[in-house]
């Protein structure tokens, strides 16, 4: 086999709101090495999509000719891992990845026993391992919060004013609950596992000869406390936030798991009905309900961001060409690599020559740092025919995440316009919109990059 690839290409499968990309390195005329990034969705596409995730898995098996060399699971969100459970996951498992690569937060060694989180929190000066365990424990708490939020969204009054908030709550709740089956499946598949953080030496020369692979994120808690976003103020924020969702809510829903509201917190107090209550209450009550939903939405958005910041940021470099895959990393994750880490300036300079950029977090407003990253890309060109133009790949679906009213829609229209203007954009969103795709095709390919 050649000692370095002669070309590379990315195939982005249209999984709706989710990620599933196959990076193929071509070594000679018929020898490929394949890297699969993620396999999940929280909403399958309405058009131009596969009939099921199983169909995607079968296509992946065909495309990689039965073998995945590296399986990258960028982080634990459902839209990146849901496909690893069930039948689709079984198909992926048959591809026997030589290496399953995940962020350090997914290391099963970090799993805590029931009393460990509190003990970790009380430790005066936690060592790095304890710090990692503590953070991993908080991630588990975040899953519990997401479950609570999902239940609350299901039992909230479904009046007109609440609909957009409840839809967001349900979406984010679903994205952030624990995908236990997927987690187990990932632990059991593949020949080897690595759990990486900024600077981890992966040693992939054997699997991907001639490709330099660098891990730029996520940082560990010790490297970048702000990855937790709350560390400056409170070590146990998420545990407290879970309690903040009221034990009465927990008690009631554990007794009646899928229906009904929690019991009143003052069961012996005098109560009345809205009909018998003051007139002002009739106006105020829906407002309070909406405020509650918005509070929960704010909480789960913050939680979603922390989870996103556990994403692997990887670069694959062949000669001078860099292919950049940041998962759903947000600014705090990026900041470490591009501002605060030792050698950040050199990293920033390297990334300027990025040849292919997998657009972060489905094109959201906070995952492609404008000044730190995008404006420094030197291969942006207005002329689509110009050789060596930046390639960008985006896997997304509209109307699932964020809202145009507060400029948080995903994909963010200002970013989309810029991607379209300055790069060769490959966007799964446009599949099935009648622009020449072959019937039955539910993927988009970038052009081959020759090295």
């Amino acid at each position, binding site marked *: 086999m050649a000692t370095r690839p002669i070309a590379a290409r990315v195939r982005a499968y249209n999984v709706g709101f989710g990620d599933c990309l196959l990076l193929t390195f071509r070594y000679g005329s018929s020898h490929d090495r394949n890297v699969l990034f993620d396999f999940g969705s929280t909403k399958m596409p309405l058009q131009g999509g596969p009939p099921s995730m199983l169909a995607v898995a079968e296509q992946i098996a065909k495309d990689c000719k039965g073998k995945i060399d590296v399986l990258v699971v960028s982080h634990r969100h459902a839209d990146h891992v849901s496909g690893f459970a069930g039948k689709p996951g079984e198909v992926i498992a048959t591809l026997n990845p030589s290496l399953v690569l995940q962020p350090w937060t997914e290391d099963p060694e970090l799993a805590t026993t029931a009393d460990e989180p509190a003990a970790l929190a009380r430790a005066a000066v936690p060592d790095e391992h304890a710090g990692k365990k503590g953070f991993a424990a908080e991630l588990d708490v975040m899953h519990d919060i997401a479950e609570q939020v999902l239940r609350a969204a299901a039992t909230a009054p479904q009046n007109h004013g609440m609909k957009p908030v409840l839809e967001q709550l349900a979406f984010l709740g679903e994205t952030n609950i624990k995908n236990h089956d997927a987690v187990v499946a990932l632990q059991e598949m593949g020949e080897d596992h690595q759990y990486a953080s900024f600077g981890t030496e992966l040693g992939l020369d054997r699997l991907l000869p001639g490709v330099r692979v660098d891990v730029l994120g996520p940082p560990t808690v010790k490297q970048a406390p702000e990855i937790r976003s709350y560390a400056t103020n409170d070590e146990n924020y998420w545990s407290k936030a879970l309690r903040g969702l009221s034990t009465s809510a927990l008690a009631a829903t554990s007794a009646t798991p899928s229906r009904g509201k929690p019991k009143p917190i*003052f069961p012996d107090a005098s109560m009345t009905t809205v009909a018998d209550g003051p007139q002002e209450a009739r106006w105020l009550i829906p407002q*309070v309900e909406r405020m509650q939903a918005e509070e929960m939405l704010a909480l789960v958005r913050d939680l979603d961001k922390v989870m996103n910041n556990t994403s692997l940021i990887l670069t694959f470099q062949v000669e001078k060409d860099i292919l950049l895959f940041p998962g759903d990393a947000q600014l705090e994750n990026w900041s470490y690599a591009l501002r605060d880490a030792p050698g950040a300036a050199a990293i920033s300079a390297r990334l300027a020559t990025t040849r292919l950029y997998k657009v972060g977090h489905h094109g959201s407003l906070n995952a492609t740092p404008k000044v730190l990253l995008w404006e420094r890309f030197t291969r942006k060109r207005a002329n689509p025919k110009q050789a060596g133009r930046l390639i960008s790949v985006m896997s997304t679906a509209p109307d699932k995440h964020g809202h145009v009213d507060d400029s948080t829609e995903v994909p963010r229209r200002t970013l989309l316009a810029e991607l379209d203007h300055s790069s060769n954009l490959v966007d799964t969103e446009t599949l099935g919109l009648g622009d020449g795709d072959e019937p039955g095709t539910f993927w988009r390919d970038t052009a081959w990059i020759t090295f």
Partner: protein
Amino acid sequence: MAGKKLLEVTVLAQDPHVDIDGYTASAKVDLTWESMGRGPVGHRVHVIDYDATTSTLYGPTDLEASIDRPFAAADLADPAFHARNVFALVMHTLGRFEAALGRRVDWAFRAQQLKVVPHAFGVANAFYSRETESILFGYFSRDASTPGKAKASRVFTCLSHDVVVHETTHALLDGLRPGFMAPSSPDQAAFHEGFADLVALLSTFTLGDVVGRLLDLNRAPLPGEVRRPPSGPLIRSSDVTAANLKNSVLLAVADRFVAPLGGAAPGALRRSVLIDWRSANLDDPENDEPHARAEILVAAVMNAFVEVWSTRLEGLGSRTLEELPRERVAEEGVEIARQLLNMVIRAIDYTPPIHLTFSDFLTAVLTADIEVRPDDSRYGLRAALKTWCGRYGIRPVRGAGGCWSKPKQTELVLDGTNFTELRHDPAEMFRLIWNNRDDLNLNASAYTHVSSIRPCVRVGPEDGQIVHETVTECLQYVSIRAADLPSMGLRAPRGVDPELIVALQGGSTLILDEYGRLKYEISNRLPRPGAAEGTKEQVRVARMQQRLDYLARTGYLDRPHAATMRIADLHRRRWTAVGIRPDDRQEAW
């Protein structure tokens, strides 16, 4: 109750969830009599006890049950007491504002009654919301795993004196200065929080004999420590040094999200007074975050308070005597706090209606105070404020004694103006402003609006001198394409679409004396370009440019619909630090 001028209502004076050796501080507050209904509901506040988490509407209660009645431990678990407690504290705070300002205070919304919801939801937050015309108090579970705590119980934010007063202050400040909720600068973003904390801290001192009882409790207990209960007519001088006063529970805003949730170390309460001025730098971008910046303002003012109080205690012999009369120590603190509370509240009338900076606020404090209390020799409060604010990088504008300068032209053209109408009719006030627009340096082509007129009567605290004033706020707006900003002497911030319509806002607070003469013109009005270098207009242009750059940097320039600050978000960010640093907003799309 009719016939009673004042109602003496029992309230909680400190957060009951902060463990002070099992002691729950309660107090009695005087409320002016009004005809009340079950809620309680009065002419300004309506308590509606709806819990969205459990969809429960609790029955209304009468305030009477808390009148002339001592606090009982069982009240902590009684939602009716919670409702009465929160009603009384909101009304008491409103009363403080009206007494200081010498007039009634409106809410920022059209309804006359602020709705207060004591158990709004099972979420760890509490906030004022202009949109819903209400203050919403959340509740959450106490940490069941903390040693010593037998079982899980709930924390009700509506029972925290500091939280209730803090939120009420947001509502009152919003009524006085709605423009302070708009994004403008790091100072304005922080001011609401800082001011609300100041009022909460100083208000504790207005609660009867609570100060004397809490003076001994100058720090949270160490684990396992049993402290001597507050008692006796004397207090150790060493307990009331400046350092120990700063560590007193009296000078900490109870952090409802940290302290009650177990495992909180002493000092987990929000204790801005301990921020070292040597390391608190307002120019540090880290301190652009509203809550960090707010705490610097609080630190400056509360350090001035502590210094003045300590100085008075030296006069009682704190340096030479081992013990001091507890009541005298408390009296000094109470009196100084009351003065200072009045000063900071009155200052709001002397701030510009929009684009506030800390410097403006300090200048307003000094100016408003000198108008009613020319002689500062007793406490030296103005001098202490200038000194301590200066240490934290807050300096007044350049005027005599740090006060606003008197206008050059005090005699306005009053022709055609009806003076009686002038004190309450916006149209009449606009006539006056229009007829004097050149002297008032207003932009004649901007949309101009008289947003409020407030006649007030202030009484000097020491000499009983009565000061009559009419305070009016006038706002101006100009909408302009970014490409046309140079016509106003401004430039479009980097990266802004030239076709973006930018809304420029300015405003002036005019203070008239009882004869209609202009006492002060406190202005962040729209600049008038074309002025010579180094003139005041050039300074205005520079400040407006700074605001534009800030709005562009923070992403607000092209998102006017997201402009109004949400107190809920601010409070959540305050204790989580989840969120983007202001300068990081430039990284967002």
